[in-house]
């Protein structure tokens, strides 16, 4: 089999299908970054398979000139698991939404995360069901008014990062549709992790939930509200003259203003291998003034399901030899007439 060259431009990953997202949808930016990142990973194009469920976000595979499977609602993670187990040579990416991945698909997501199959999950979180025209989702804030919740939603939302931590996920990060370069870095980093990489991407649905993340991520707020977590670096955010950081305070991290009483050097250093710190960062509540943390929350070294799957097959084969069908059928008690 020929392999195609691995020097690509972004254009090589653009398919010929007309894009059907609403003009202005955050999905466009994510698509663009994924195309750019794929072009740069050095992997042959035919080795990528993108599996999605159903939702606006799940239309993603159609727009990527790779192998793609637009499956059914909530099941992309399960389909991708089977694909990766049968084809460990592929780079498998799951694209899903907050509804697809956490509502109907929450269980397969949870089990994927605990099993740690080596694939990348991109969860486009717009806090709404886009494709079905705007009902609250499992990440919508309580009190959200939508057509299905005219008096405000009474569902306490999931925190996707905390959820992933609770499932034993080995890699958890977050970025934002409009943070082009941060998103590219996030995707690239996620791809290098072996095991399931869970990437929450905050995404704007400008039709049904416009500005859901604006108070943190738009140009006006971004500088003051976003904490870029970097492993080994202090947990600080804000602009040069209005800077904050987290210091340790018993069993919690406390935000302090830097400058007078506290310096950057007092701040907690981010440690992506620390589950407890990850839990603290996951539970920051930006709606309550806390910064929005982006970057890698957590990474751990956990054996992957697919490698163990393959190993057991290899071990059995090396121990027992390639199966002899005649012998198998003749096993047990036989008799000859």
């Amino acid at each position: 089999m020929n392999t195609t060259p691995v020097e690509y431009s972004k254009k090589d990953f653009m398919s010929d299908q007309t894009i059907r997202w609403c003009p202005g949808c955050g999905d466009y930016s994510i698509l663009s970054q994924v195309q750019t990142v794929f072009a740069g990973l050095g992997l042959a194009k035919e080795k990528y398979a993108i599996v999605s469920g159903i939702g606006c976000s799940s239309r993603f595979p159609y727009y990527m000139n790779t192998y793609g499977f637009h499956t059914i609602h909530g099941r992309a993670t399960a389909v991708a698991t089977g694909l990766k187990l049968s084809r460990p040579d592929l780079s498998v990416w799951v694209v899903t939404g907050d509804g697809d991945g956490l509502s109907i698909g929450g269980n397969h997501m949870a089990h994927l995360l605990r099993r740690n199959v080596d694939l990348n999950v991109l969860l486009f979180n717009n806090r709404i069901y886009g494709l079905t025209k705007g009902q609250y989702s499992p990440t919508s804030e309580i009190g959200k008014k939508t057509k299905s919740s005219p008096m405000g939603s009474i569902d306490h939302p999931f925190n996707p990062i905390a959820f992933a931590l609770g499932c034993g996920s080995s890699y958890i990060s977050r970025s934002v549709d409009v943070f082009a370069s941060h998103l590219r870095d996030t995707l690239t980093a996620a791809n290098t992790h072996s095991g399931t990489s869970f990437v929450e991407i905050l995404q704007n649905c400008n039709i049904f939930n416009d500005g859901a993340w604006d108070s943190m991520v738009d140009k006006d707020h971004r500088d003051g509200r976003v904490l870029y977590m970097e492993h080994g670096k202090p947990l600080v955010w804000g602009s040069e003259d209005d800077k904050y950081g987290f210091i340790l305070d018993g069993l919690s991290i406390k935000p302090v203003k830097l400058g007078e009483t506290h310096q950057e050097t007092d701040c907690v250093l981010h440690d992506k291998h620390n589950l407890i710190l990850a839990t603290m960062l996951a539970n920051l509540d930006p709606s309550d003034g806390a910064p929005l943390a982006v970057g890698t929350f957590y990474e751990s070294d956990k054996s992957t399901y697919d490698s163990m799957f393959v190993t057991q097959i290899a071990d059995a084969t090396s121990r027992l030899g390639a199966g002899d069908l005649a012998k198998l059928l003749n096993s047990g008690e036989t008799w000859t007439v």
Partner: protein
Amino acid sequence: MSNAAPVVLDQVVVRFAGDSGDGIQISGDQFTRTSALAGNDLATFPDYPAEIRAPAGSREGVSGFQIQLASHPVFTPGDIADALVAFNPAALVTNLDGLREGGIIIVNSDKFAKIDLEKARLVSNPLEDGTCDKFRLVQAPIGKLTKEAVEAFGLKTKEIDRCKNFFALGMVYWLYGRPLDPTEEWLRKRFKPPFLDANLASMRAGHAFAETAELFEGPFMVPPAVIAHGTYRNVTGNLAIALGLAAAAVKSKTTVFYGSYPITPATDILHTLAPFKNFGVATFQAEDEIAAVCASIGASYGGAIGVTGTSGPGLALKQEAIGLALMAELPLVIINVQRAGPSTGLPTKTEQADLLQAMYGRNGESPVAVLAPATAADAFDVTLQAVRLSVKYRTPVVVLSDGYVANSSEPWLLPDIDALPPIEVVHPTDPETFKPYLRDPETLARPWAIPGVPGLEHRIGGLEKADITGNISYDAHNHEKMCHLRAEKILRMRADIPATDVHGAASGTLVLAWGSTYGAIRTAVDQCLAEGQAVAHVHLRHLNPLPADLADIMGRYAHVIVPELNMGQLSKILRAEYLVDAIPFTKIQGQPFRVAEVKARLDALVAN
């Protein structure tokens, strides 16, 4: 009497019954194997209690094993037993219904103390209160005699207790004139001293006791049957399916990916397959049925042969995803081991009530192929055929096994592996000619293009596809065309169905059936034929598509009767398809047909 020449019998039905811990299944297996080696044809049915471990001695905890052996072909474990070995009162009273008048009962008379009777919710002793009057009751103090026989080996009480079944087996071996060697040989492979010696001693003691105690009018003798030459083994349906999948992996040189979530009575397929890793079989225990089928679809998408196994409630859960495989036109085999429903129903009991679910249980027009094994051994061929069709036509194929096929066992003439045709798996590689939904003119299958091939990058999914390109299409006429193509693809499988085998008369009454009812029906039809009745039997392996010659065949008969373990599902399909007045003959009791039931119904039909 014991030295008299054995009484020759055409066939014999023996039933072992006792607590799960009494070694019932082992006794049954040994008796089966010894009889098979003696050249009998036979069929067996193990009968497990619904509970994992019901209290010892309780009615709910009774485990059974029935075997029919004969000097002619047999197709069922027998309607009614000639002999019953009952290890305790509960086993006795719950099985008398299935023993013919005058049949032999062997009981362990040590187990009929007051406390034993209480466990079985009995107020009087059935050995004394007339319960057994109509039978030939043989009371053997099996417990005590076993103890004496193995005394020498220094076992603990519990260990001695576990030798009891061999004592009883020894008795039965004497009764039916069977040699002890096969079981002795087996014991030697399985046990080490002192357990080996104890079991051997116990069996020999049982044999000697039967001979000397002159309790029976036996021994009886069932001469060998004339059966096809070759090597045989016993298989259950679940085992045969697992072996069929292993064979499919070998014959296709392709990984069989079995995604499943445990559910009675399908779980054993997963258990059996799990150690077949070196045969190209990969098993995946999923978090639920939906994940199981989806992972299998993902595996098929990657180029493996995706198979998923379950039982009725699980099939319901998988249906949405089966629709995806159908739309994506990928191979997928769904093994459904039917159990009695609806809902949780009677999960350990058998039924054939998922036929319509298999045919129609999805949204939209979503035809799939449906096959059903007639017997345990047949399940091997059916499984291979299902994989073959699914791979060839790139579409889901459902195999409808059931609790009876799954657990019953019969001798299986081992196939010549080299004679099994290979399963051809082709993945396109040429970007010039590749179109995702360009169809093979003969099969209408689309190319099975798998990720990893340069230049074939494309997208598939559950939205309606444009013909040839496979792009999403909302076009009205394309949708109609695609719906018809998907249906036509199933119909084209008729080319893969051999001419239908009609057994019996050329006119008169046609008995048309499918699945696990085969044995009872074939036996009943043979009885009718022996009596000169104009009856024939067609047993369908292919339920969808139906064989091309079926309309013709049915046209030759005055009556078509359709016995089923449901409320008339195949008969519905036949009536709709052929406008033939197929008469439903249904039983929905969680139990297989008895031969006599079928015979009586046929007699009544002929009498009318």
